[in-house]
């Protein structure tokens, strides 16, 4: 009897002890095979501040699972390993290639309020600049049982990042190096001068021209790029001439981990260097103009047992980044590549000067290598100290923890400019005549760019009680937390949080817990700054019941439920602060006098809203966690999130006669629901280690109230529809002929003719106009996000694969992929899918009327064809292989002689190819990445891990 009791005591102590080391697999993990490699809904884990909760919905991933991720931004790495986390990578520019991320979908009304809270080692920080090697785990806290302790900041979910710590034992040294090649993907295919010319002629004919704009001789000259044609009838392939096919990215890291009974340490140094794709760049040792990013990460995490009862942890970490680019900037270069016509001017003149014209001085050789450069340096430092004093002498199980941290971010940039001259080329029959425009000037003195800094000081203290009595396990925590973020020129952002948390478990079968948080923020009127948030949760592990305890199949069968009220005051725009005050400022001036002297006006910038408060969320979550002795596991979650008091503009209530700028009011309501599903197997079959897992996350939201005006037609209402997405018309085809036009409803956007877009009269008023706009899908936000993870290990070989799939989403397909000539741009391969019906100069009949996806080509902007509509906003479901990796580990005895435990070599690919692409052109995740900013990449790497 006593022995059983001790046995259970030990298990409970183990739970409590191990729970303070986040990420350690709990009881269930012992039963399965090679368990460390995948995320699992680790429901017994900390939810921050050393508070454990068995009843919450948390998804986690270990740092080592992310180690093969090649980009320098962690936000790109997590997706696919954890459920409920959706990220969209917006580009591939070195230093700026991160993802926008959401937890459990987009649950509120505006993107400026939808960010999750991110904590690194219990302090608010930016985790995107950390390297995967320094991470122990990343946990996604999803439901109220886990997020209620974050009070006003928890409703959008919380990302908890825990960095690696030392451990008792021999010093372990890991050295990693990898070298990769990046390749651009998702770029448009542009038509060369000949094809562009032919289609341009077609466009001109559509507008009534009777003779071709580009004559047959000119078109032939475009095709025949010899002799003078290169200069007088140029045919420039902008993508091929200016963007490299591959460019390197490399990463080298060193970690040291070890310790003894008194001190454990973890030290880390990482270097990442990423180059850009610009072919022409000055690589003078003094300066380079290619886009590039170089980052150094450093960290030291130390644990010291000062006395038997006093533990001290401290972390010091820093990141130094240097990002470079040409002076003109990324958007100017990519804009030129995407818009400049293939036949405007030759890149080089016969005498080797840069080509151009009086109105087009944007020669890319000049922009890339002779315009100067920009350099931005970031220096960030994070320091944290945490002390825990056991107070067992007062009562057993009691301890107190105090912690403080400083996170500072500094950025400094400067730029140096120079000028380049361009020359236009003409031919008088004998010689080339070059006319200069602009001037060649040397590199100037330079000027400062954005210099900024901000730092966050935070601290917390908690009184913890952790004890078990027989079958009962009790944990109670009382905590106080504050943080303050200082940004120059603005009033600091402050948060204060008082938390009480209690959890009780009986026999590891029944669990119940509750959290209360009294949370305040400086944004609100004094006296109204604090709110109360809470959650209650429970769980029942049925597999521990006597009737199931000895069964052969299931080792864990836990159902859990939670309910709570959490708040959302996350905002990333400065103009939403202190909205309870009426704010005045300068603006709307006038001019007086014959000399038109400016007289500055004073205006009410925004009238105050005395009732200004935070958004609230009532969240309910039910979940099921099953683990079997055969190594199969299943996790299911379903949630409801009722958001109310969302800040929005109250058009519905205030008419224009008010005359002022309305403040935002808390009238918005959104209803969300969704779920997560994980099914996996973790098994050793003979010599083969198998881990396979399929996951899916689903989220759906409906706007219940958003402050819009009354009396809108059904299609114009935002209420009753998802809260994200653009507004546009539905294109139902193209007018086939005059008879079709006569039989269709009139359209009110300007002139139109056969071949132009026909839109649906959604509101049924007999006219197609802007009142027929409706909600078109999200900006790439999917309702369903799925992933498949596979990991195989066999005799030293290891293979990993991750496939992700996104469904029920729409993206904006920019015109540059097809017809951008009305905008001054050029034509892409999609332009062939235009509506056309005519006989060309060679007598061929061109008839795309039945298969056209775009309206007829026109050189003038047709207001009718360029309305926001389903022509540009398209369904873009896709399935992509996100990661493929193959490695081999050498464990030969000979290695021990040089101190090596093993060497692993590997090759991997990131985003190598798409398995299913509904969009068919461009990068389906974000086609617009390369238009106006830097395109997306796929990366192939080879690497070496040395483990000493």
């Amino acid at each position, binding site marked *: 009897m006593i022995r059983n009791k001790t046995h259970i005591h030990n298990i409970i102590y183990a739970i409590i002890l191990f729970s303070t080391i986040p990420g350690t697999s709990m009881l269930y993990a012992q039963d399965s095979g090679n368990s460390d490699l995948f995320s699992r809904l680790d429901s017994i884990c900390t939810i921050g501040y050393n508070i454990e909760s068995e009843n919450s919905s948390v998804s986690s991933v270990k740092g080592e699972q992310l180690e093969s991720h090649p980009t320098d931004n962690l936000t790109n790495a997590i997706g696919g390993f954890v459920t409920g986390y959706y990220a969209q990578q917006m580009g591939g520019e070195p230093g700026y290639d991160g993802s926008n991320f959401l937890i459990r979908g987009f649950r509120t009304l505006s993107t400026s309020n939808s960010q999750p809270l991110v904590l690194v080692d219990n302090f608010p920080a930016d985790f995107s600049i950390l390297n995967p090697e320094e991470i122990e785990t990343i946990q996604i806290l999803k439901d109220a049982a886990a997020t209620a302790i974050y009070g006003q900041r928890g409703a959008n979910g919380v990302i908890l990042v825990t960095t690696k710590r030392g451990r008792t034992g021999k010093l372990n040294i890991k050295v990693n190096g990898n070298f990769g090649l990046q390749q651009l993907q998702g770029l448009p295919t542009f038509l060369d001068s000949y094809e562009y010319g032919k289609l341009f002629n077609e466009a001109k004919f559509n507008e009534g021209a009777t003779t071709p704009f580009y004559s047959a001789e000119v078109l032939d000259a475009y095709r025949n790029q010899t002799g003078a044609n290169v200069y007088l009838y140029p045919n420039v392939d902008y993508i091929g001439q200016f963007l490299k096919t591959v460019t390197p990215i490399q990463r080298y890291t060193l970690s040291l981990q070890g310790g003894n009974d008194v001190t454990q340490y973890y030290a880390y140094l990482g270097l990442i260097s990423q180059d850009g794709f610009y072919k022409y760049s000055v690589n003078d040792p003094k300066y380079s103009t290619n886009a590039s990013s170089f980052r150094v990460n450093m960290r030291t995490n130390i644990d010291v047992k000062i006395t038997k009862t006093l533990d001290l942890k401290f972390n010091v970490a820093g990141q130094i980044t240097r990002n470079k680019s040409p002076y003109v900037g990324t958007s100017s270069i990519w804009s030129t590549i995407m818009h400049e016509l293939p036949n405007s001017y030759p890149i080089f003149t016969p005498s080797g000067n840069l080509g151009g014209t009086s109105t087009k001085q944007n020669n890319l050789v000049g922009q890339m290598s002779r315009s100067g450069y920009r350099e931005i340096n970031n220096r960030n430092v994070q320091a944290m100290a945490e002390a825990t*004093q056991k*107070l067992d002498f*007062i009562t057993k199980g009691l301890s*107190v923890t*105090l912690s403080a941290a400083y996170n500072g971010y500094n950025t400094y940039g400067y730029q140096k400019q120079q000028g380049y001259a361009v020359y236009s080329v003409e031919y008088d029959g004998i010689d080339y005549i070059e006319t200069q425009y602009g001037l060649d000037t040397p590199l100037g003195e330079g000027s400062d760019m954005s210099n900024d800094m901000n730092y966050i000081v935070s*601290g917390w*203290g908690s*009184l913890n009680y952790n004890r078990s009595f027989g079958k009962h396990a009790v944990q109670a925590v009382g905590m*106080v937390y*504050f943080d*303050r973020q200082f940004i120059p*020129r*603005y*009033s600091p952002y*402050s948060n*204060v949080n*008082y938390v009480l948390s209690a959890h009780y478990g009986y026999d590891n079968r029944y669990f119940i817990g509750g959290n209360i948080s009294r949370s305040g*923020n*400086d944004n609100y009127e*004094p006296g109204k*700054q604090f709110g109360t948030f809470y959650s209650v949760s429970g769980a029942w592990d049925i597999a521990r019941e006597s009737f199931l305890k000895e069964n052969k199949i299931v080792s864990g069968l836990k159902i859990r439920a939670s309910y709570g009220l959490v708040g959302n005051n996350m905002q990333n725009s400065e103009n939403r602060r*202190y909205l309870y*005050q*009426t*704010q*005045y*400022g300068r*603006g*709307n*001036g*006038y*001019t*007086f*006098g*014959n*000399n*038109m*002297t*400016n*007289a*500055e*006006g*004073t*205006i*009410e910038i925004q*009238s105050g*809203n005395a009732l200004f408060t935070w958004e609230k969320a009532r969240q309910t979550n039910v979940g099921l966690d099953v683990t079997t002795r055969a190594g199969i596991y299943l996790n299911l979650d379903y949630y409801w999130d009722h958001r109310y008091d969302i800040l929005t503009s*109250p058009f519905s*209530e*205030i008419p*224009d*006669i*008010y*005359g*002022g700028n*309305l403040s935002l009011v808390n009238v918005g309501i959104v209803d969300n629901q969704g779920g997560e599903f994980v099914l996996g197997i973790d098994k050793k079959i003979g010599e083969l280690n198998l881990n396979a897992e399929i996951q899916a996350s689903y989220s759906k939201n409906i706007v219940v109230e958003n402050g819009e005006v009354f009396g809108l037609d059904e299609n114009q209402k935002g209420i009753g529809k998802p809260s994200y997405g653009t507004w546009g018309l539905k294109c139902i085809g193209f007018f086939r002929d005059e008879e079709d036009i006569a039989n269709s409803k009139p359209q*009110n956007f300007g*002139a139109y003719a056969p071949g132009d877009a026909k839109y649906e009269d959604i509101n049924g008023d007999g006219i197609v106009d802007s*009142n027929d706009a409706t909600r078109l899908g999200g900006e790439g936000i999917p309702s369903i996000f799925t992933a498949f993870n596979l990991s195989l290990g066999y005799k030293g070989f290891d293979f990993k694969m991750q496939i992700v799939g996104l469904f029920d989403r729409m993206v904006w397909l920019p015109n540059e992929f097809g017809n951008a000539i009305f905008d001054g741009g050029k034509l892409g391969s999609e332009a062939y899918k235009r509506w056309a019906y005519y006989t060309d100069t060679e007598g061929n009949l061109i008839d795309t009327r039945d298969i056209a996806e775009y309206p007829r080509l026109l050189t003038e902007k047709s*207001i009718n064809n360029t309305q926001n509509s389903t022509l540009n906003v398209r369904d873009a479901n896709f399935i992509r292989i996100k990661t493929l990796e193959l490695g081999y580990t050498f464990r030969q005895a000979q290695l021990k002689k040089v101190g090596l435990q093993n060497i692993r070599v590997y090759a991997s690919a990131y985003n190598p190819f798409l398995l299913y692409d509904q969009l068919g052109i461009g990068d389906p995740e974000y086609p617009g990445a390369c238009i106006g900013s830097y395109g997306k990449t796929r990366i192939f790497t080879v690497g070496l891990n040395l483990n000493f």
Partner: protein
Amino acid sequence: MKRYIFNIVIFLFGVSFCSCESMLEKEFDDTLTIDQVKQDIDLMSGLLWAAYSDLPRNDASFNCIGGDAMLDCATDDGMESSISSEIHKMTKGAWGPTQVIDDQWSRLYSGIRKCQLFLSCIDESPVISNNEILDPITGKPTENSNMRERMKSEALFLQAFMYAELIKRYRDVPFVNSVLDPDPEVLDMPRTSYHVIVDSIVSWCDEAALHLPNTYSSSTKGHATRGAALMLKSRVLLYAASPLNNPTNDREKWKSAADAAMDVITFSETNRDVYKLNATFANVFSSVYDPEIIFACQYQNRNDVEFMNVPNGFSKGNGHTNPTQDLVDAFEVKVGDKYVPYDPETMNDDQMYQNRDPRLAATVLYIWGVIRSGFFGGLRKRAKSVCL
């Protein structure tokens, strides 16, 4: 020892508790409040200048509908060349409650609010004084004399002007005469009848005319003058007497209108002819503040009028506004030494632009007409044909 450490722990907790509340105080208040505005003369005056900025106009392009077409394009006199211009809503009759042209509703109410805000604050502001300042030479009050009364009168004039625009477009409108709270109950106000508002406008103009100066110096032109207030009253009374608003043809209304107009004439004559016709017709459009202007809306130097309307081919002109033949034909032609109406049937020949009413050359650019005196057709190239 136990007790000692226990006490320290409780003390630390207590300290952290109370210092936390004050953590949420705003460190510095960089928002401007109305009391701060009242204490600063620039900020206070700024409230009135901001009201001027809400005089009705189209910011996209001066006096143009939809940023390109001048209003004449909606009449028989002119034609907008771009088929996608908004003014075609007027020419095609698509103009209606859901397709509004020159929508100034929110702008005007925004301006009225600014006037009301200024009027509610000015009496509590010590920085704008009411001192009499006399010109040392003439002994008469300068334009800055009794500044507080003058500025109040300017606000009354602006408010009157804005209501005049509102009733001209919409007839009965809600009458806002205070700074409203964003309270849906209060804002649910009914429309006040046209003639009641006309009476208010007239009383505001009368009051304003008492304190506004006659003229301003060249550096402060643009402010409301006494003549402007009288003129506004006169125009409002004229519209109120017109058949659209005066269906019973009440002669009293016509008399009020005539009297008000006479007041303007008397005012001009007794003040050294403040207003008179410009001797040269063409100069009306090219001089700043020619004497025909009673009140004008001022802008920084801009070239979008030229940019939008100068014919294609002349340095980036977009040629939006173009005259119709009807307009050209309306100008008389000199036959012998008398001007007679132009007859398009018989006079349509090479000489059709000769001996025409001189105002034709100042209004319409015709073939071989001169657009800029000094050179013809641009720097190096001859002008391409200028089409009418």
